[in-house]
């Protein structure tokens, strides 16, 4: 199977770009535990997110996935170190950490109509007062699972399984075609 990489399309009203691999660690455990919070914030350099939030700067961030699960994001090359640090810090606690970096694809969507492109594909209210920047949502996009957050009012990052990269790219670029803006938001 040939690897899909570097997908880019910018002739629509929102540009869709596949980002390089990002380090992603699924951490399950007690999100109120100090050790878990400390290792997550220490490795990512961002504040620990509240429910349905994602704090992310560059490649580093934390997304709130469920009441007992976060997605820890770091630069891809630092994954072995990050995994070792998580294991060392949480040793003896009830937790799970899995390196899921290579199971995921991450896209960046950029343009004033970014809310609209996502709203065409996901059953989520993207009104600015309901879904402000840093809000995070795990949902479906078309027919596959996906998660996204807004970095600002024009830029979103979206993750999906790597096996559906081409499908997600295709539906995103289709929803972002020029002259198809509904201008709802």
């Amino acid at each position, binding site marked *: 199977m040939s690897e899909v990489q570097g997908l880019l399309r910018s002739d629509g009203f929102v540009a869709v770009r596949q980002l390089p691999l990002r380090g992603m660690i699924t951490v399950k455990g007690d999100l109120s535990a100090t050790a878990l919070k400390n290792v997550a914030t220490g490795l990512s350099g961002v504040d620990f997110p509240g*429910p*349905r939030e994602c704090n992310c700067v560059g490649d580093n961030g934390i997304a709130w*996935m*469920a*009441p007992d*699960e976060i997605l820890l994001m770091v630069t891809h090359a630092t994954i072995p170190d990050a995994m070792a640090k998580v294991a060392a810090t949480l040793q003896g606690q009830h937790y799970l950490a899995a390196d899921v970096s290579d199971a995921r694809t991450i896209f960046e969507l950029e343009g004033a109509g970014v809310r609209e492109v996502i709203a065409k594909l996901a*059953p989520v209210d993207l009104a600015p007062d309901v879904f402000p920047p840093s809000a995070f*949502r*795990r*949902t*479906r996009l078309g027919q596959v*699972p996906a998660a996204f957050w807004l970095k600002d009012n024009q830029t979103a990052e979206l993750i999906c399984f790597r096996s559906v990269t081409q499908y997600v790219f295709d539906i995103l670029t289709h929803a972002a075609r020029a002259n198809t803006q509904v201008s709802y938001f």
Partner: protein
Amino acid sequence: MLILHCPYCGVDAEETELHAGGQAHLTRETVGSDDEAFEDYLFMRENPKGVHFERWRHASGCGKWFHAARCTTTLEVFGTYSAQTTAPPREICDAISGKRPGWSWKTFSARMFS
């Protein structure tokens, strides 16, 4: 379109983000159960016109299972609640009693908390 509030992640999820898990509050019969109880557990399900209790999973979301109480004729949702329980909690029963006085479902009823 059914919209259920996920009690775990707090999202108001619409039907396509959820997976239906069938009737709630089954007693799982096992070794030592008699044939009739086992048959009941395996094959018999409620099919009410009105108040119903179901299991749902926030499949394309936080992934958690939860319970929902709703009306099968109007699709009105009385409430959703934790999966870690064998009976609907009082606030759910009260909410149903407010809308459907005298309701009953298997061994649960409006009288439970009256």
